[in-house]
């Protein structure tokens, strides 16, 4: 199976400073994929490597099946950079025309597409205003329109809702939903977990430039429960056997944690452990939000 994005041990070091240690992940076609991690986890550098802005020190990656840097593939990609600044002496219309030309779109198709997108992001009345006069939220909107000009098959959004008010955030969410319906793959880098929770199919948690875990958010939305067990006498085979009830069982000393789909699975799970001669000293179950999961996986040190 080919993936929209596939990376293998992608690494970037700036001198002694390792920004991304070894990123390995797969994003399927048509997926809305969230990229989460504390500040300085290497998210933006990872994104820059995928987009050809920064050359990886080692490792490899493919986008839409082609190796990094393939220009034909870049014509099918949209990108909204973080803290982006665009040429603010251009008008909204000129700005989109410039980027459309760089996508090699022909003039008549570009004209139609620009009107469509200005309507979509609510900037049609401002098409002849210079970007210098735009508010932060309006710039974010025009940046988003820029990323969608070419009807991309794969879109990278780096913090698309930063600087947006609730109305703007709702707009971005709706746009992402629209992209999903069209089968576009979206790679979303965001700090706003509540945003990610409602828009993404799967998320990767990264820290120090490594993927700690990839989680399916459908499980979370269906009421995933985090279970922590205090046990003795756990064998690796028994641990693997726990996967029958929940995802990603992990052991840390005498603590076993996993997330289960439904609380109703707890009695059967306990019977299984007892049957395997595991001594159970305690069971704690808790509904998980994405924020809980984030803290649980990434830790509270903020990646420092």
């Amino acid at each position, binding site marked *: 199976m080919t993936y929209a994005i596939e990376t293998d041990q992608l690494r970037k070091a700036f001198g002694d400073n390792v920004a991304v240690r070894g990123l390995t992940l797969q994003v399927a076609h048509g997926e809305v994929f969230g990229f989460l991690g504390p500040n300085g986890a290497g998210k933006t550098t990872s994104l820059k490597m995928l987009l050809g802005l920064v050359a990886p020190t080692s490792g490899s990656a493919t986008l839409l099946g082609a190796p990094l840097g393939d220009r*034909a593939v870049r014509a099918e990609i949209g990108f909204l950079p973080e803290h982006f600044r665009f040429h603010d002496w251009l008008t909204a219309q000129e700005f989109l025309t410039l980027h459309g030309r*760089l996508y090699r779109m022909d003039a008549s198709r570009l004209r139609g597409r620009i009107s469509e997108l200005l309507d979509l992001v609510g900037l049609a009345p401002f098409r002849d205003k210079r970007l210098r006069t735009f508010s932060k939220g309006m710039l974010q909107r025009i*940046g988003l329109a820029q990323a969608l000009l070419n009807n991309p098959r794969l879109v990278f959004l780096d913090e698309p809702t930063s600087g947006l008010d609730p109305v703007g955030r709702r707009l971005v969410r709706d746009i992402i939903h629209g992209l999903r319906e069209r089968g576009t793959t979206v790679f979303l880098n965001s700090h706003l977990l509540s945003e990610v929770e409602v828009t993404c199919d799967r998320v990767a948690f990264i820290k120090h430039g490594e993927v700690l875990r990839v989680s399916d958010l459908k499980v979370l939305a269906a009421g995933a429960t985090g279970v922590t067990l205090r046990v003795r006498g756990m064998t690796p085979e028994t641990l693997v056997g726990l996967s029958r009830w929940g995802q990603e069982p992990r052991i840390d000393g005498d603590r076993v944690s996993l997330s289960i789909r439904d609380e109703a699975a707890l009695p059967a799970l306990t019977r299984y452990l007892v049957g395997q001669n595991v001594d159970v000293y305690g069971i704690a179950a808790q509904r998980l939000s994405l924020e809980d999961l984030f803290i649980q996986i990434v830790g509270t040190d903020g990646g420092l």
Partner: protein
Amino acid sequence: MAAFVIARLTFLEAVRRRIVLAAALLGLAFLILYATGFYFAQRDIAPIAPEGPGLGMLYRSGLVSGFTIMGLYAVNFLAIAMAVLATADTLSGEIGSGTIQALVSKPLRRSEIVLGKWLGLAELLGLYLLLMAGGAMLIAYLLSGYVVPNAFIGLGLIYLEVLLVMTVTLACSSTLSTLATGGVALGLFGLAFLGGWVEQFGALAHSQTAINLGIISSLIMPSEAIWHRASYEMTPALARSMGIDMAGPFITTSVPSLLMVAYRFLFLIAMLVFVVHRFSHRDL
């Protein structure tokens, strides 16, 4: 081709950020001042010119050609300052602010961005030079009927010099910050300027060491030496033979060879290749 889109963007930026307007207004002020100076110098020199039709004419033509070359030297200097100022921010500024990211992730080569910027700046500086040098030559013609010899060759050489300074600035701008770029580019220009004049005075004083120093400096940064060739081309043979005393200090005595002109051309190409390579391989 994407390079032309970038070239247009670069030109448009200069217009929108009022660089063109500022340069045009200052250029116009320069031309007015120059015309006024030319007019009065010519009027006031007439009574003190030596007697007799032959010598008087000689004196006059020396003055007129000297004054014209002086004007063109000022134009040359302004065009170079313009080349540094308009170019210093062009890559470093876009890298610093991040505007480059949305460009580079599009389906184009990075070399097309560099070439586009080069073309846009070359167009801008060409127009500026044409306006200024053309204006100075026109003033000389209207006020005295003097036609600059080899005007096109001379202008072409000055343009080559301006392009060279612009390309060196672009090279700095692909690596250094805007401020450092301006500093280094002007510093190199200063070095070439000084070296050029050391060579000229060396030639007057018959000092081979001074001439060699000048040649070495123009190998490091060949901008000034081009001016000396250009001024040589644009000076009438008669004025050249009169030397520095009558025709003023802007007339060239040590003439850089055609080989040096070829060297400059290769220098420019090498610089351009360097910028493309540097910009294509750096992290943004």
